[in-house]
């Protein structure tokens, strides 16, 4: 039997909150204070992260920009045929250049250095190359006197750049009194100048900081990346196409997908172990070669390309596929004539980001021997080479003071290339990506 419920008891009267009381006022103030503090905390986190980045970039540029310069001293050279050990008559002949290339410039330089008086030990070990270059360019100089600018030793170079704290006691400042007095003498005579260091940009590695360059490493990076792109791009795009467009639902597709997701998270050094155990020790491929480095990096960045390409392919609307299928295109034609061209900007963005990662990667290459000391520009895909980040690593390990600025300068070049690549990726994404 239904009964009519008794009317509910009247809701207890509750006094409206009096926001004007001091207790409530202070409570609101406290809440607003907490709000402001929390907000400041968030801003502070970003400021800390940004200032760390700024500090990093600042120290690198501060230490590195002088790496693009080198100090040179002026010497007057008497191109004496007897000292050079060449016959002036033969130089005019057809073998002239070859003769000049083999002449004894060290002896010539030794003689010329005498004019530097007390500072005769300040020339770089490779200063003779400048003499050779000058003479080979103009064989008429033979027997004549010429004034040349040649590079100085690293310690003098660093003194001229003000890298030493001369106020510090002699034993802790890292430079001898002799070198300081040599530098003062040269500087006082006005025999020093600062020039652009072309050796640094185009030369290969060397044990002497003033002769070391990143040219060899940059070419090694280029060769390695060519291999990486040639392998990773087709493999990555094809896998993505298969997974997105053709893979039948089933175990195989699941296993492939799982493999790719796992490979994307495997630490890079593990790929180095794979390269060492499989490519070098099992397959017997050459050590330190851009070929092996390129394959290893390709396997490492392939998952990045696959994942980015899948996202790009997935974002092409199904109506495009349906329209193409509807007018009689085969599934392969749909993919290669319509879907891939539309997905290309996204695929390119992912590929460039992957390549930038490969360019900055060091750890796996360490294990396959790309830390070789290579004083020559690499000749091909199978000759020993090193890469830019590896050059940074090798120089940072060097105890010589002169390599600090070279390391920072190499980092500047590396970072510039990486920033350019990432900007290109962002530009492509913004310029060509279509929102459907």
């Amino acid at each position, binding site marked *: 039997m239904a009964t009519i419920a008794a009317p509910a008891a009247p809701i207890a009267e509750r006094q409206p909150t009096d926001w004007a009381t001091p207790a409530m006022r202070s409570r609101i103030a406290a809440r*607003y204070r*907490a*709000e402001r503090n*929390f907000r400041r*905390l*968030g*801003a*502070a*986190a*970003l400021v*800390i*992260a940004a200032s*760390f*980045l700024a500090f*990093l970039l600042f120290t*690198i540029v501060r230490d590195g920009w002088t790496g693009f310069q080198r100090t040179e001293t002026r010497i007057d050279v008497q191109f004496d045929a007897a000292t050079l050990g060449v016959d002036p008559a033969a130089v005019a002949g057809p073998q002239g250049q070859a003769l000049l290339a083999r002449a004894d410039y060290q002896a010539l330089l030794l003689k010329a250095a005498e004019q530097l008086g007390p500072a005769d030990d300040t020339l770089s070990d490779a200063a003779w190359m400048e003499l050779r270059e000058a003479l080979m360019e103009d064989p008429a100089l033979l027997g004549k006197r010429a004034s040349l600018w040649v590079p100085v030793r690293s310690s003098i170079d660093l003194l001229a750049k003000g890298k030493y704290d001369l106020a510090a006691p002699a034993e802790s400042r890292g430079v001898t009194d002799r070198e300081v007095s040599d530098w003062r003498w040269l500087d006082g005579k006005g025999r020093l100048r600062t020039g652009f260091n072309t050796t640094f940009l185009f030369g290969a590695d060397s044990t002497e900081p003033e002769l070391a360059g990143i040219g060899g490493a940059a070419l090694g990076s280029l060769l390695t990346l060519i291999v990486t792109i040639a392998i990773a791009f*087709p493999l990555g795009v*094809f*896998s993505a*196409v*298969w*997974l997105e467009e053709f893979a039948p639902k089933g175990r195989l597709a699941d296993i*492939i997908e799982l*493999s790719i*997701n*796992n*490979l994307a*998270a*495997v*630490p*890079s*050094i*593990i*790929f180095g*172990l*794979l390269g*060492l*155990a499989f490519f070098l*020790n099992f397959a*017997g491929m050459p050590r330190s070669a851009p070929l092996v480095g390129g394959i290893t990096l390709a396997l490492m960045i*392939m998952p990045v390309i*696959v994942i980015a390409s899948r996202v790009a392919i997935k974002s092409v609307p199904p109506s495009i596929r349906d329209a193409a299928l509807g007018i009689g295109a*085969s599934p*392969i034609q749909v993919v290669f004539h319509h879907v891939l061209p539309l997905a290309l900007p996204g695929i390119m963005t992912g590929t460039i980001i992957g390549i930038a990662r490969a*360019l*900055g*990667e*060091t*750890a796996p290459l*360490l*294990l396959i021997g790309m830390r070789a000391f290579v004083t020559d520009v690499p000749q091909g895909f199978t000759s020993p080479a090193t890469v830019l980040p590896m050059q*940074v*690593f090798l120089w*940072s390990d060097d105890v010589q003071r002169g390599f*600090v600025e070279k390391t*920072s300068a190499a*980092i500047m070049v*590396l970072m510039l290339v*990486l920033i350019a690549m*990432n900007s290109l990726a962002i530009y492509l994404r913004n310029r060509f990506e279509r929102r459907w």
Partner: protein
Amino acid sequence: MRLLIAFALVLGLAGLAYLAGRARGNRMVTAAGGRIGVVHSRPVYHGAYVAVLALAPALIVLAGWGIVGEGLIEGQVLGSLSAAERPAPGNDSEALMNEVRGLVNGDLPQAFNPLAPRLAPVYAAARSNGDMLAGAMAVALLAMGGLWGWSRLRPDFRARNRVETQVRALLLIASIVAILTTFGIVLSLIFESIRFFQLVSPVEFLTGLAWSPQTAIRADQVGSTGAFGAVPLFWGTIFIGAIIAMAVAIPLGLMSAIYLTQYADPRLRKWLKPILELLAGVPTVVYGFFAALTIAPLVRSFAVSLGMTDASSDSALAAGLVMGVMIIPFVSSMADDALAAVPRAMRDGSLAMGATPSETVKKVMVPAALPGIMGGVLLAVSRAIGETMIVVMAAGLAANLTANPFSSVTTVTTQIVALLTGDQEFDSAKTLSAFALGLVLFVMTLILNIYALAVVKRYREAYE
């Protein structure tokens, strides 16, 4: 170089096969009076079909020669020596063959080994014979495949369907490379680790407290015990990657994500996000250089000012701090995703009840997003423990079991690099131990990743 030329030649011939097939297709279309439907496939597919049949066998022959050729030549060259002259297999033969190759290629003006100049002509002859044979075989197969394919072309021949089946097979093969890579990694790690565990017991490796992989060269040598207890390495890895780095990355990354998603002006966000992305794009070797050269001395002088006179110049703190900064963008973007997945109604409801934005974040958003954030943190940990260059450059090599952030510890990745660079004999326990460490690292990151991804996935589904 020789192979490159051979590949270019084969590709060129395949191009000719393509043209021939396409021309025949074109003629069939003309013969049919240009009516659509009489010829099943378009001429390009006829061309492609002929080209694929010509190219595939030739490429297999060339690739096979590229892989096994050098070994066959070597066997022939070394076989030409009498048994007494023949160098021991392994390093000696390898060195001799390198000199012979250098002489033949002209890279080497003079050889040290007196045998090398004698072997050089043998090598050159064997190589040119082999090259000719492989090249002839490739061209013959190419011609046969091309002609057979060409002869099959008819107006009703379904060339497009054939070519599309082949393209599908190519796509599948490309996908399978990912499986092969995974298998390659697992097999090479397990294979070398088994060899290591034949020398050192797994129990000692996983539970031992002393790590000193230098094996004694002389029996009376001091300090080279060859102890392979990896616990100090595991501790160092966790200490730097999972404790110090996360102590930096979690608060900074989480607060950055909260500020960017909840507070920042869209215009400000447009500028701040790329800065974080730039932080993620800096190569690790640069972080390592910065940690070793700038942060480590600062940390050391700080420790000295605290009164620790024995503070290490390659402290765990320096490496961990820089690694933490490196991970900030990663944690931030994971937290960003997790916060964005919280239903808007929850946030709006909280704000409508009069909660301040910070109260909403602390009491509603973060608790709701916690599983997602935790998953992101676990992924970040797995990245940090696999990170190599920062610890190689800034952390030490001394395996200490210590919780003092100012002292030096070593990590798994540092040791792998230290063990595998420089002079190595490949079969020593020292070298093989690097693969066992690699296996542990691989398994650790794999478990972390699978678990973290499962957490993140379940969390996303909860709100969908």
